C-alpha cells in the first residue's frame, strides 16, 4: 500500500464521488485538485465552474484564488457574478458543489460565519460567500474537512448554509432546489446522511476505526449497517496528483 498524506487521501476520495459529465462549482484547494483528478481518470467530461464566473477553465498553474487569471485565459466562457449565480446555480444547472466550514453539525448544516454569538463573536469567520446558495441549489453537495471534534458539533453556532436543517423533512418543506449534502469526506472516513438526514459513518479509510471516528465527532455518531472501507489511493491517482496537478505540493503536503 502506497504512503500518502491526509490531503491526498481526502482529495482522492472526493474525486471518486464525481461522475462523468458533472457540472461542478469548484473552490480552490482540494476541491480544485479533486475535480482535475476526476477529469484525468473516470470523468473526462466533467465541467468545472468557478464562482468568479469562469466556465471550462484550463489553468496552466495551480490557482491561489478562484479569480486567478490562469483560470480565465483559455477558458470556454466567462460571465458576470450575477449570471453565474442566477443562470448557472439558481437555475439548477449545477450538479455538484463543494463546501467547507468551521463547523458541520449532525444534519450537515454548516457554519462559516462566527464562533460564539453573532453580534459579539468569539471568532469572526469569513462568512457565507456563495455557500448559502451552493448548499441550497446544487443538486449534490460534498464537504471536505479534517475530522475533529470541534468541527463536528451537535449543532452549529450559526447556520451559514443548510444541510438537512433539523430533519430531512424540514429541508423538503423548505423547497430547496438541491438535494443537500451527500457526503462528508474526512481523513478518517466518509459520513453520509441517512433517511432522516442525520450524518452517519458510512465508510472508513484503510486502517481507521469506528472508535476514532466516534471520538472525533461531537455528537453520538451512528454507524451504517453497511459500513465499508474505502479503497486505498492507487498509484495512478497519486501519480497524477503529485506529478501533474500539484508538483510543488502546495496543497497536498498538509495534514489538512
Amino acid at each position: 500500500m502506497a504512503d500518502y498524506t491526509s490531503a491526498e487521501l481526502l482529495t482522492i476520495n472526493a474525486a471518486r464521488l464525481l461522475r462523468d459529465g458533472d457540472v461542478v462549482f469548484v473552490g480552490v484547494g482540494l476541491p480544485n485538485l479533486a475535480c482535475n483528478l476526476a477529469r484525468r481518470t473516470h470523468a473526462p467530461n466533467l465541467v468545472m465552474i468557478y464562482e468568479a464566473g469562469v466556465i471550462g477553465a484550463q489553468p496552466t498553474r495551480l490557482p491561489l484564488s478562484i479569480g486567478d487569471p490562469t483560470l480565465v485565459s483559455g477558458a470556454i466562457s466567462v460571465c458576470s457574478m450575477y449570471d453565474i449565480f442566477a443562470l448557472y446555480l439558481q437555475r439548477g444547472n449545477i450538479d455538484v458543489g463543494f463546501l467547507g466550514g468551521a463547523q458541520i453539525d449532525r444534519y450537515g448544516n454548516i457554519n462559516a460565519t462566527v464562533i460564539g454569538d453573532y453580534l459579539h463573536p468569539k471568532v469572526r469567520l469569513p462568512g457565507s460567500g456563495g455557500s448559502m446558495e451552493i448548499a441550497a441549489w446544487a443538486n449534490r453537495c460534498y464537504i471536505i474537512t479534517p475530522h475533529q471534534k470541534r468541527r463536528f458539533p451537535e449543532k452549529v453556532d450559526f447556520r451559514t448554509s443548510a444541510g438537512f436543517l433539523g430533519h430531512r423533512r424540514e429541508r423538503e418543506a423548505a423547497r430547496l432546489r438541491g438535494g443537500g449534502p451527500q457526503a462528508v469526506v474526512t481523513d478518517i472516513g466518509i459520513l453520509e446522511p441517512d433517511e432522516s438526514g442525520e450524518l452517519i459513518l458510512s465508510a472508513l479509510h484503510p486502517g481507521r476505526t469506528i472508535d476514532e471516528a466516534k471520538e472525533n465527532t461531537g455528537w453520538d455518531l451512528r454507524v451504517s449497517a453497511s459500513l465499508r472501507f474505502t479503497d486505498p489511493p492507487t498509484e495512478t491517482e497519486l501519480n497524477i496528483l503529485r506529478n501533474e496537478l500539484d508538483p510543488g505540493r502546495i496543497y497536498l503536503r498538509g495534514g489538512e
Partner: protein
Amino acid sequence: MSKLMPLSEAIRKYVHDGDLVYAAGFTHLIPFAAGHEIIRQHKRNLVLARATPDLIYDQMVAAGCVRKVIFSYMGNPGVGSLRVMRAEIEAGRLEWEEYSHFSMISRLQAGASGLPFMPMNPTAAGDLERVNPNYRQVIDPFSGSPVVVVPPLKPDVAIVHVQRCDAEGNAQIWGIIGEQKEAAFAAERVIVTAEEIVDESIIRSDPNRTLIPAFIVDAVCHVPYCAHPSYTQGYYDRDNEFYLSWDEISKSRQKVQEYLDEWVFGVPDRSAYWEKLGPEVHRRLRVGERLSVPVNFGSY
C-alpha cells in the same frame, strides 16, 4: 467631452466623507490605487461595500477611513482571514452588514436595474436572514410560496478599474467581469480608472465589449497598474506573494502602519508606487501575449 483628470482630483471631487463607496471587482481589477488615494486624502466615516472586501478594504479600515463594511465574504482569497477587519469587528469598533454572495450581488442588480427589490429562491439558511433585516419575504402570487427579497444597493460612488476606455469614459473590460457593470449603473457617481486611454475608434471597433457607457461616468483617470496586488487580465499578473505576505503584515498593527507609511503615505501616486516595487516585481508580474481571435462586425 473628455473627463480625464488625475486620480487625486477624482477622489477629491467625487468621494466625500460618509459616502457609501463600492470599489468593484471580483478578485480581478480591484482598484487598489483608488483605495490608497482615499487613504492619503484622509476620508472618514466611509461605508465600504464589496462582495469580497479583499486587502484593499482591510487597508482602508486600518487607516481609519471606515465606519462600516457591507460584504458577503470577508477573506483574503485563498489565504485566510482579513485580520484587520476581523479584529475591528471582534472588538466592536467596526459596524458591518452581511450577505451571501448571491444576495449581495442581487442587491447590486436591483440597484442597477432601478428595481425596489430582487427576489431569490429560498436557501433555508435562516440565521443570516434573522440577523440582517434587509432580508425580507414576499409571497409569490403564482405559487403562494414565500420568496426571499433584498433591497437595492445604491452606492454614492462606484470605482471601477478597466483595461481600456476612451477619454469620455466608454469602458471595456474582459476576463472576469464580476459586478463592475452593475456597480456602475447602481451608483450615483462613477469613477473609471483605466490601464489605457484609447481612441474612441478602438472602443467602436468592438461595441459588445463596452460594459459601461460614458454618459454614466463622472471621471476618467489613466492609472496604469491601478489594480496591483490584484491584477488586470492581459496586462499584469496577480501578485499572490503579496496576498500571502499581507497575512503576515496584518498580524501586527504596527507592521500595518509601517506598510501604510511606506507604500501609501510614502508615495505620491500610483506611478511612484509601481516604480518603488522595483524591476524584480515588474518582471515577476509580466505576462505574455494571448490575443483574442478578432470578429467581423462588417461595414454596412
